[in-house]
């Protein structure tokens, strides 16, 4: 029983982390109609910035906040210098250009920080396991990830649904030409949205860094999952990204946790232990395929344009 609770928490935590990454991606893709493969590079930059600033300042929280600001700024500069020239182009051009950016960022990181990767150690107060219910311990840092991600989700909801900027963002998602025609500075809005998306990616990167490592190309594997999530959730929908991310996180974790034991009941030990990881990693793609068949527009599609 405790095992199930703990694995559910693992899944929730993994899902919420994916949400941070997917939220930025779905904003940029849904509102600006822009395919940004370099989203994973911004995730990587967030982690590198955090590792650098935390080492500089000696404070995890301060360093993380500085890194967040730095990725926001980087996103804005990137949009202003390179990406705004690509809005008029087709998706294929955007894929090519942002793929180029991945190579650019990977080599830039290699030049600046070297090929070996960095460590982002946690402060002592975050490395202790916490007793959540009697007999069940959970890493404090993973609890913090859950809290931060939930806070960000709530904040995003408030910004998008309750503020003027949020209203413009929603309007931009449903009809870009129209809000341009109404005299809204759509260029500025896009720069802001892209900066926000970059900051979210950076946040995901820096939150993930102490669990994983800070290394070149760290954003490339996880970006695939983020794309799966925005497809499942409905492109452009923050709510969809939130629900889909939690779905994917829990399904992935539960699959890895319980599938091998289930398979062992029907297969021989060796065959089961080989097949289980393959099958469990397939589960989320299976989920995506089913959703695409039943609801091609995703679970919570954003308003039609």
């Amino acid at each position, binding site marked *: 029983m*405790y*095992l199930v609770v*703990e*694995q559910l928490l*693992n899944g929730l*935590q*993994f899902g919420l982390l994916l949400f941070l990454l997917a939220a930025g991606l779905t904003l940029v893709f849904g509102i600006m109609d822009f395919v940004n493969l370099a989203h994973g590079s911004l995730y990587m930059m967030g982690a590198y910035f955090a590792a650098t600033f935390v080492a500089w300042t000696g404070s995890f929280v301060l360093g993380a906040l500085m890194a967040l600001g730095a990725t926001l700024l980087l996103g804005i500069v990137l949009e202003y210098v390179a990406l705004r020239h690509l809005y008029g182009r087709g998706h294929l051009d955007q894929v090519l250009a942002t793929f180029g950016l991945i190579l650019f960022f990977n080599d830039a990181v290699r030049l600046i920080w070297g*090929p*070996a*990767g*960095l*460590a982002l*150690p*946690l402060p002592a107060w975050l*490395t*202790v*396991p916490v007793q959540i219910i009697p007999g069940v*311990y959970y*890493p404090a*840092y*993973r609890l913090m990830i859950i809290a931060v991600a939930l806070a960000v989700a709530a904040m995003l909801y408030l910004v998008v649904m309750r503020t003027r900027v949020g209203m413009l963002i929603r309007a931009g998602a449903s009809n870009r030409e129209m809000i341009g025609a109404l005299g809204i500075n759509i260029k500025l809005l896009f720069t802001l949205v892209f900066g926000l998306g970059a900051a979210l990616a950076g946040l995901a990167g820096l939150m993930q860094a*102490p*669990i*994983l*490592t800070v*290394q*070149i*190309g760290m954003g490339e*594997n*996880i970006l695939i999952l983020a794309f799966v999530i925005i497809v499942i959730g409905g492109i452009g929908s923050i709510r969809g990204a939130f629900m889909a991310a939690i779905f994917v996180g829990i399904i992935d*974790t539960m699959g*890895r*946790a319980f599938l*091998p034991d289930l398979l062992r009941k029907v297969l021989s*030990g060796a065959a089961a*232990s*080989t097949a*289980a*990881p*393959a099958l*469990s*990693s397939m589960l989320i793609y299976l989920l995506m395929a089913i959703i695409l068949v039943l609801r091609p527009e995703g679970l919570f599609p954003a308003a039609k344009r």
Partner: protein
Amino acid sequence: MKKAFWLAGAMALALAQPATAADSVKIGFVSTFSGPTAVIGNDMRNSFELALDHLGRKIDGKPVEVIYEDDQQKPDVGKQKTEKLVQSDKVDFIVGYIWSNVLLASLKTAVDSKTFLISANAGPSQLAGELCSPYVFSTSWQNDQTPAAMGLYMNQKGVKSVFLIGPNYAAGKDMLAGVKSTFKGEVVGEEYTVWPSQLDFSAELTKARNSKAESIFVFYPGAAGVQFLNQYAQAGIKAQIPLYTAFTVDELSLPLQKDNAIGIPGAQEWVNDLPNAENKKFVEDYRKKYPGLRPTYYGAQAYDAAQLINSAVVAVNGDLTKKDAMKAEMEKANFKSLRGPFKYGNNHIPIQNFYLQDVVKDADGQLSLKTVATIVKDDQDKFHDKCSMK
């Protein structure tokens, strides 16, 4: 006209090459020099270059030419680079290969052309068994040997049960099979994770804790080892269940693992503090030549590969056409290996000691690896019977 000129130039160059080849020793070096694992390839190159420095950049009085090629950690690229080295560069020796799958893809090219290939790391079971060849030597080990040594150490410690975790690919299975071949206690659970994309091991760690196993064994090379140790420590399992490892803590991962690695034992055939004069000189000169870096077992194996080549060329007085004589000389392992003296088995895989290594703070206050004990002496891989060479 211009084209003809260039063509003529190219032909002149092509004709000129065999002339230089005859009075130099040409070595091809295939390793990973791009991507996240480039740090390993760089360490091997650094150590190989240091070995050449120690040889005075000459082998048997001849200048040495080394051509470094990047396999990008991909079997198909490794094969192409090996073909290029054999067919167009016509090298005398090929050295390197971190990854078992890259080596297996490249092996045939080298063997068919009767070019000597020296694996400075990869040790798939096939290489030790049915695919063994007179032209292939190893300065490392066969994959199963290192984890098998760890299994022996766990027996010595009186460990009663273990939970195994490793990546779901060829080497991962070799490694877990290696522990199981020697560990006498109970294997409570065995988990394979998706490789290389799975980064989060929380589900496996939770299962390991709930299995009530007395110990955990893992094999996670490179960055995955850093991630595993981070998560193992953060989940508080480090204080509850001891961890035993193979190829998870080394000088490249240690600066990232930091204190998380303290007290985590590993098995290895070479440790930086092995007390022989050659090894001391190697470690000192490496740290002098490459400030801020420390040599790893990958590097030590590459260094030994250079020495092995040197012994062969010296034995035939530089006549590189005498392949049988060179092979006979290399089989003697007649050089001062950094790990101390070893012998070759019939399959050209070293019969050697494996040591227990632990993480300690050294004199400079930095974390480093230290030899604690000899786990097993003169260990031979268990596939040598399948090799047709006797």
